[in-house]
C-alpha cells in the first residue's frame, strides 16, 4: 500500500520540499520516491483498497527510462515497459488498445474511465499504471463472456440506459462493482453507486432502471463473475 510506503520512507508527499522534488527530478527518481512525490492524487484512491505494489527495491530510473511492469487485466497477463508517470487509463487505452475504458477529464471527476481494481470501481485516470501491478484489473471488455454481453450490459441495452454511449462503459463498470458488493441495492443505493459517473446526455433515469434489471439478471442467472 502506498500509505505504507510513506510510513517506511519517512516524508509524506506534503513534506517533500521544493528542493527535494527538484533534486529528485534532476537525478532521476526511485520508483518509491516517485510514488511518494507524484502519486498524491492517486493515494486517496489506492489507499481505499487498491493493491499497488510496494517493493523494497531501490531501483533508480532516469527521466526517459522505462519501467518493467506486469498487469493483470481481464484475467490476462500483460508485460509492459512504461514510464512511471503513465496513468493506468493511458496504458489501457493507448498502449494496450483497450478503448472500452473512456477518457473524460483525466482528473477524477467524471468516471468515464471507471475500472474494477480487485472488484472495486476506481478511476483509472487517478491511478498510475505502476500502482496497479498485482491488482486484478477488470475493464468493460472483461464483463463480456466471449462475444456475449454480461448481465449489466444486457440490462443497459434493454433499458436504453445511454445516449451517446461515451460515459456508458464507466456506468456499466460502476453498476457491476455496486452489484458485486450489494446484489440487491435500493434505488437510493443505486443513485449513490453511480454518483461518481457523470452522464451529460442525462440518461440517469434509464441507468437506474438498468441497474435494477441487472440485479435481477445477475441473481436469476447466478450471474457471470
Amino acid at each position, binding site marked *: 500500500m502506498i500509505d505504507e510506503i510513506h510510513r517506511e520512507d519517512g516524508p509524506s508527499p506534503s513534506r517533500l520540499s521544493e528542493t527535494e522534488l527538484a533534486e529528485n527530478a534532476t537525478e532521476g527518481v526511485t520508483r518509491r520516491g516517485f510514488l511518494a512525490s507524484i502519486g498524491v492524487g492517486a493515494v486517496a484512491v489506492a489507499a481505499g483498497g487498491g493493491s499497488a505494489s510496494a517493493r523494497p527495491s531501490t531501483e533508480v530510473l532516469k527521466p526517459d527510462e522505462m519501467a518493467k511492469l506486469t498487469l493483470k487485466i481481464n484475467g490476462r497477463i500483460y508485460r509492459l515497459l512504461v514510464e512511471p508517470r503513465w496513468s493506468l487509463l493511458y496504458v489501457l487505452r493507448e498502449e494496450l488498445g483497450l478503448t472500452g475504458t473512456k477518457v*473524460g*477529464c483525466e482528473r477524477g471527476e467524471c468516471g468515464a474511465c471507471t475500472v474494477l481494481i480487485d472488484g472495486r470501481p476506481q478511476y483509472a485516470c487517478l491511478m498510475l499504471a505502476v500502482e496497479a501491478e498485482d491488482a486484478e484489473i477488470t475493464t468493460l471488455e472483461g464483463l463480456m463472456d466471449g462475444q456475449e454481453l454480461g448481465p449489466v450490459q444486457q440490462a443497459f441495452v434493454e433499458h436504453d440506459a445511454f445516449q451517446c454511449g461515451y460515459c456508458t462503459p464507466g456506468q456499466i463498470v460502476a453498476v457491476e462493482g455496486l452489484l458485486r458488493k450489494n446484489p440487491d441495492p435500493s434505488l437510493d443505493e443505486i443513485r449513490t453507486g453511480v454518483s461518481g459517473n457523470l452522464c451529460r446526455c442525462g440518461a440517469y433515469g434509464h441507468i437506474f432502471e438498468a441497474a435494477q434489471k441487472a440485479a435481477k439478471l445477475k441473481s436469476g442467472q447466478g450471474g457471470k463473475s
Partner: protein
Amino acid sequence: MNTEEKRYYFLEGLPVPETPLPGDEPAPWKKTHFVGKGLPRVDAYERVSGSAVYPSDVNFPDMLYAAILGCPYPNARVKSVDTSAASKVAGCRGVMTGSSPGADIAWRYEKKKSKIFDPHCRYEGDAVAAVVADTPYSAWDAIKAIKVDYEILPFVSDERNALASKAPAVHPGGNQVGKPQTYERGDVDKGFKEADVVLEAEYRTECELHTPMELHGCVVRWDGDELIIWESTQGVYSVQTMVAETLGLPLAKVRVIGRYMGGGFGSKLVTSKYSIIAALFAKETARPVKLFLTREQTYLVVGNRPPTNMTLKAGIKKDGTLTALQFTCLGTGGAYPADGTWGVDWLVRDTYLCPNVKCESTDVYINAGPARPFRAPGHPQGSWALEQMMDALAEAIKMDPVELRLKNIPTYSQGRPGNMPYTSTGLKQCLVEGAKAFKWKEKRAALARTKQTGHIRRGIGMAGGLWQVGGGMPPSSIVLKLFVDGSVNLNMGASDIGTGTKTIMALIVSEELGVPLDKIQIENADTGTTQYATPSGGSKTVPSDGPAVRDAAVRVKQRLLKLASEDLKSKPEDLTVVGGYVVSQKDKSKRIKIGEIGKFKEQRVIVGLGCRGPNPVGKIIQPFCAQFCEVEVNTLTGEVTLLSFLAAHDSGRVMDRLTYDSQVIGGITMGVGFGMTEMRVLDRRTGKLCNKNWHDYKLPTSRDVPSEIVSLPLELPDAEANSIGAKGLGEPVTVPTGAAIANAVYDAIGVRVTSTPINPLQLNRLLAERRGKE
C-alpha cells in the same frame, strides 16, 4: 397552389395504394409494425461492449500525440514565442507557431477574420503554439517548455459592462456586434393602455458550457494526398467543408469519419482549430496524429450557451387576454461574432397569442470564448423570462397558470411574416393532457388547502414551449441496397449523436420493407463513402433524413414488386412485401420468396436513392411542449429537491419509444443543469475562467435528477410535415424545464428566482433578503 397541396387535396378521402407510384410521396403509415415500438438500439451492442470505435479510440501503431498551448490571458498580444527548449524535450517531434512554415493560416468566425495562431489572443485559451510528440506526456512536457512573451491587454469579461464608454474594445470599432436585432408587430404602447395589469421584470441566465463526455478532437492521417480525419463531430460534411476551405484542399480529398461520437449538444456542429493543426502536424511528420483538447480547454474554446440579461414587460386583461409584450435582451457571443442573442426572443414572439409585441436584442463582444449553438439556442433563456412572467400574470389576475396559457394558444406562427399556419399545433393538447396526467388541478387544490408551516415547503410549477426549428428540411439523400437474401444496407451521411438516429432510420426501413432490424446494416457519417447530410443539430435529423430513408425504401420496394410481378403474373400495385415474401393482396396463394424472384436472382441487389422533398409552402412545422414539476424547498438550507417531472410533448409521430423517452429524460436533466446547477464564472480581476472542470462547474448528477420523470408523447398526426409524420424532439425537451422549476419554487416559498441557477447559494440570499423585509 403548390404541388404538395394539390397532392394532399387529390388524396383526400381516396384509398391510397400501399406503395406509391414513382415520384409520389408515400402516404402516412396507418398501423405500424416496427416504428414507435421501443426496440433496443441497432448499435446498442457496440456501445455497451466497448467495440464501438469513437474518434478518441482510434489508435495507430506509429501515431503521435499533439497538444495546443492556449493563451492564459483573456486579452493579450503575443510578442514572441521561444520554442527552443520545447523542441529539445525528449519525445518531442515538432513545435508549431504562427511563424512556422505553412502555419500562417487564416481562420474565421462568421465574417470576422482571424488566424489559427492569431498574434492577438482575444480570449483565454486561444491557440498560441502547438507541439507533437511520441506520447501526450511528452507533448505536455514540451508545451510547458515553450516560453511566450505576452503583452497583457485590458479586457472586458462581463457583457453588462461591455458597452460602457471606458470598456476596452475587443475589436476596433467598439463592442457592439452590428445593430440590435429588432422585431415589432402591432403597437405595444396601445397594448399596455388596453391592459388591466402591466408587469415588468428583469431576468438573467448564466452562461452554460456544453462539456460533452467525449473530449473535442480528432485523429488525422494522410493517405497520399487524401486527408483522413476521424473526428468527434455532429456533422462530418461540415468539418470536410471547413477543413478543405482552410487548407485549400479539394472536398473530395478530405475524408471525415465520425461514425460514433461521444456527445456534442451543438458544440461539435462546427470545426475547430485542432483539426487543422493535427492535419499540419500529420503532414510534417508523415505520421498519424491524435489531437484531443484537455477537459479544461473544452471549457474555454469550444463554445457555450451565452449569458442573457432580459427585461420583459407584459400587459394583460382580467380575462386573460394578452395585450402587449415588450422584450429586450443583452447577450454576448464572446470575442468573435457568434450569434450571442440568437433565438432568445423567439418564444416571446411566437408562443402565445398577442397582437402587440416588440423585441430588441443586443449582442456584444467580450474577452471570452466564442459561443456555439447549445441545445435549442436561445430558447431555454427566453423561456426563463416568458414562462415566469406568464405565471406572474396569472397570479395577478387570479387565474390558473395552465388556464392562462390555454387562453392564448395560436394556430399560426405569429413570429414570422404572413401569419402562416402550423401543420400541427399541439400546445393545447400538451397543456391539457399534461395537466391531466400530472393531476395539476388536484395537486394545486391540495396545496392551497394545506397550510405549510415547517421549513420544508412543497410547490408545483409548469411551463409551455416550442422549438423554432424541428421541422426538418432538404437536403438529404440516402442510398439503400436490398440484397438477394433480403438483407439491407443503409447508407446515410448523418451522425448519430446519441439520439438514436441509426435506430430510427433502420425502423423506417423495417416498416417499409418488412426487413427485421438484425438484417439491416447502416453505414453513416463518412464523407468518403456515405451520402451528403447536414450536421445533426436543430432537432431536424429525423424529420430531414427520415423521409429520405422512407423514399429510398419505397423506391427499392417499387422495383422489387415490379420484378416480382413478372414471376407472379400480377400487377405491381396489387403486390406487397410480407416477411421476406412478395405476396398478392388479391390472391394470398400467389407469393414468392424475395430471393426466388427471377430477375432479382440475376441482379443480386436492388439499389434505391431516396431524397428529402421540400417542406409545404406557406406552412410552419414546429414541435410543442409543456412540462410540469413538483419540488420541495428546504428554507433552512436553500436546497431544492425535484420530486417529479412530467413532460408532454408534441413532436408528431413517436419513431421509437425507448429513444424518445431517453431524449425526454435527457432534456429535462440538462434543463435541471441550466436552471439549478450550471454557471460559467469569469474572474472579475483577471478575466480568467474560474471553474473549468466538472468539480467546480457542476453538472446534474445521479443524485440531482428527479426521482420520477414521466414522458407523455402526444402523437398528433401530421401528414403535412413530412412522409414519416415526425417532428424534432431533442431540443424542445430542454426548453421549458428551467422555467417550470422556477415557477414551482415560487409556488413553494413565494420567492421569484429571476436569475439562474436556483442553487442554495442564491436561494439562501433571497430567503435572507425576504426575512430582512419581514
